[in-house]
């Protein structure tokens, strides 16, 4: 733990000289994000010519803008979407899926960063703290015990259940944080809460009907497969305010990251910052879990990658870079998940872990080696 803390301080020590590096890194990440979005809308298991894809996208975008002012353009847009199988695939499958992966990937990374600031520990993340397990537990309870009583479980019910579960665990962690002052101990408490949630889920599964187990297992695998424009609207409605709130907090976050004593001396209300950090983080990760199921690894790894690339812990830099790199990373992983073994699709968590973990291990080893040199 001491090493971890030292490494955060080391990074922070270099933070003021990093504006140029931030500009390069953010521009690089934005470029990567644009490239992967372009690839993601162009590539799929159904082959559509590149020129056709981009001409349909251009036409769609123009109609979309015009439809704000004109009803005729709105009707024309609907006609374009359903005019052929290819346009349906592009506008009803590829585009919403790509955008959802980008928005949620970026948000999950920012959520992970805020948790890491809160716990002053780079291994904190929605998965480690049991927030994802809490979501899974409540989804499991709904599927197993309420499905029979309320009839068919809609995806909206699952979204609400996941959201409720995430917030429940967040509130629990917040409650403990009032008593446990040591952040490492609080992290351990969070992990234990996660274990309890997993145990409750397993307990429910023992008594569940086969189809409920199938449903829960399927949901737990995480996927952007069912993405549609309604999901995008929900994601934007939740994530944009969350991200704005995170940006508004960059100054207190910067002070808090240097220690509670320092933050207090700078006039920061530490208690309020802690509550806001965990609330914003949970809101973002709950939205991701609700719309795409549990997506492992991104929340822990991306902020670490961002800090390593930036060689700085300045909150404004890390939040921006984490969002851009997280959006790129998640979109790229989703592209891999749906194309590598197409038409069979992989779970998103499988790809994020398999492709992301080695990168982080490599970065950690090489950054330690550099420090030793």
């Amino acid at each position, binding site marked *: 733990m001491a090493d971890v803390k030292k490494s955060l301080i080391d990074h922070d020590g270099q933070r003021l000289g990093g504006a140029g590096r931030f500009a390069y890194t953010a521009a690089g990440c934005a470029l990567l994000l644009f490239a992967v979005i372009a690839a993601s809308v162009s590539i*799929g298991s159904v082959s559509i010519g590149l020129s056709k894809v981009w001409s349909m996208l251009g036409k769609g975008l123009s109609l979309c803008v015009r439809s704000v002012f004109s009803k005729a353009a709105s009707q024309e847009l609907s006609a374009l979407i359903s005019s052929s199988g290819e346009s*349906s*695939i592009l506008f009803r*499958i590829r585009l919403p899926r790509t955008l959802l992966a980008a928005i949620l990937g970026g948000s999950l990374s920012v959520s992970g960063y805020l948790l890491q600031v809160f716990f002053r520990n780079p291994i904190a993340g929605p998965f480690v703290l049991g927030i994802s397990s809490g979501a899974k537990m409540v989804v499991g309870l709904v599927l197993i015990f309420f499905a029979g009583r309320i009839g068919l479980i809609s*995806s909206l019910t*699952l979204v609400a259940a996941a959201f409720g579960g995430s917030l429940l665990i967040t509130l629990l962690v917040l409650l403990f944080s009032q008593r446990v002052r040591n952040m490492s101990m609080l992290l351990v408490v969070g992990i234990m809460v996660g274990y309890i949630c997993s145990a409750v889920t397993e307990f429910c599964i023992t008594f569940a009907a086969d*189809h409920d187990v199938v449903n829960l297992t399927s*949901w737990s695998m995480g996927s952007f*497969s*069912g993405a549609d424009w309604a999901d995008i609207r929900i994601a934007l409605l939740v994530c944009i305010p969350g991200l704005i709130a995170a940006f508004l907090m960059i100054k207190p976050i910067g002070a808090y990251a240097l220690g509670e004593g320092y933050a207090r001396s700078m006039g920061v209300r530490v208690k309020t910052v802690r509550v806001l950090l965990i609330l914003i983080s949970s809101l973002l990760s709950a939205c991701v879990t609700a719309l795409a199921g549990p997506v492992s690894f991104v929340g822990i790894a991306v902020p670490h990658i961002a800090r390593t690339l930036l060689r700085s812990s300045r909150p404004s830099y890390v939040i921006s870079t984490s969002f851009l790199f997280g959006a790129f990373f998640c979109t790229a992983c989703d592209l891999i998940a749906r194309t590598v073994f197409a038409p069979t699709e992989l779970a998103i968590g499988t790809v994020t872990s398999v492709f992301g973990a080695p990168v982080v291990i490599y970065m950690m080893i090489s950054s330690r080696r550099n420090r030793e040199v």
Partner: protein
Amino acid sequence: MELDFAQGFSVDYYEGGYKLISISDGSSFLVIPEGKSLPKGAPEGAVPLYQPVERIYMAATAVMCLFDALDGLGSIAFSGSRAENWYVEGAKKAMEEGRMVYAGKYSEPDYEMLVQSSCPLAVESTMINHSSEVKDKLEELGIAVLTDQSSNEPHPLGRTEWIRLYGAILDKEEEADAVMERQKAELEEALSAGKSGRTVAFFYISSSGRAVVRRSGDYVSKMIDLAGGQYAFSDIGDPDSKSSTVTLEMETFFSSVRDADVIIYNSNIDGEVKTLDDMLRKSSLLQGLKAVSEGNVWCTGQNMYQQTTELGTIIKSFSRVFSGQANGLDELPFLYRLR
């Protein structure tokens, strides 16, 4: 014993009423008539089953209906599923009345209960191959384990024909023949309708919004073929794979299902859907599909997968839908129309 479809077992009859059952997984069982003992020179490795074979532990859900059709539920004392999970009414009733008790699922049986009641035989599905330690433990405790291989049968009615094997164990060969004859007649009737040429999509949407279809070559896709339909996902998945389903990337799914003439929603796996709206809520992509606009969306009844004895009837229902004989109808055996 002469078999029409099944390839996974054989039954040889010997003097004195002895029967030797050989199964494709290499196991064999010697059925010994009541009052007789293990004969000298019995085949090496054959597990003796002394008649009457009673107090059976049934952990293979698809086999329960075969015993039900043979009027042999009385031979089963232990179930691997709880009462609420049975769609075989006889089994459900037996459990509710205490004639059959839950003894843990296939991967976690209650060994003490089985040993205490001198259970002689556990009937397992091929799922037991993923929990081989359970099989070893049961055998160590003196409980014979018969792994039902009917799911590997290439012909759908091959699955049904495993009723002849259980008929041999229970001395109910005539009852087994009667079931097979009925199902063969249903199949003949379906085959006589010929090929309809209509494309058929059989799938469900999982709780994570992914499309799950039956692998091409799977018995459901074969039933669609026998019923005169053309399976919309005929080139999906390795036909020789053991897996029965494939989670499909949405673009391929959409391009295959978009112009399908008939949709059969597989509600057996993720819970029953009652109306067309229930199905459409699972994915916005399903709106506007040809079959949806034309009202050709059907749904499987929850009991379909536990009705191995009725596969011929199910094929006949499929055939009636594909050939247009079901136009104007809302319900068929094992299928109902979604409105």
